[in-house]
């Protein structure tokens, strides 16, 4: 399963927006998937990402599934956000 983050927008900032995104994912793409399923989170096209938004989506996906792959993470705010989540939100990916 590949989740294209750009489908939520190219600038992803607030927690309420992140929470809404995760609720949509849970209702559709992630519904009925096994915890063993490989989940690819693709950041292609994202221009701005913050820990508030990503904590509600990336951290929560990582808490539900064991096999997470992060793709196209070259954007500097994506890298900085993932670094923050690893340091302060126990993101293990």
């Amino acid at each position, binding site marked *: 399963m590949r989740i294209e983050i750009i489908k939520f927008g190219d600038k992803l900032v607030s*927690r309420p927006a992140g929470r809404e995104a995760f609720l949509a994912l849970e209702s559709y793409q992630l519904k009925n998937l096994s915890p063993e399923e490989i989940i690819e989170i693709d950041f292609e096209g994202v221009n701005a990402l913050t820990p*508030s938004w990503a904590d509600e989506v990336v951290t929560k996906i990582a808490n539900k599934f064991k096999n997470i792959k992060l793709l196209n993470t070259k954007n500097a705010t994506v890298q900085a956000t993932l670094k923050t989540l690893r340091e302060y939100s126990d993101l293990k990916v």
Partner: protein
Amino acid sequence: MGNDIEKLAREWMSASPEQAQVESEYYCPTRDVFEARNNKTPEELINKGVDESLSYFIYSILGELGNNSFDHNLANWPDVIGVFFAMEYNGKNGRAIIADRGLGVLNTLKKAAPELKTDAEALEMAFTKKISSRVLENRGNDLKFVKNNVIENNLFLKFCSGNACVAINHGMERETGNSVVRGCVAILKF
């Protein structure tokens, strides 16, 4: 570059609730208004020649600061809801200000850390330790992201709440505020 937006922010902070809630290009009563205005930030800066990557970092930092005001004061604003948000860039130097008339960092963090006694201690904790006043949720990373990326992008941030301020550039230094800030004021220079 003049001092106008700092003056306007100070006036907004001390205005009567009726005056502070007057519709203006700077007053954002709700998160939606703040985000709609901040969404224009990267394009405006890029069009004026600011590096694209830096423009998106500035947008992200402002997004975290502004949303923090709404996250921590929702349903608890003492008088005026929302934030004052202004930005200016003259082709060489830029400045953005986000101010709120909320509870302030000490009152907010005391819910999770009752041992906090001073505004200075509260600011130190907010920018360096994983903690959130919304204790039932796993939060508390946004100001650490702000601090680290102000430092890494060689920006300058002054953040004041109560009678304390921190100045962040190559590191973080505590400062005593010149006056008491009811709520929070953040000044980002780039």
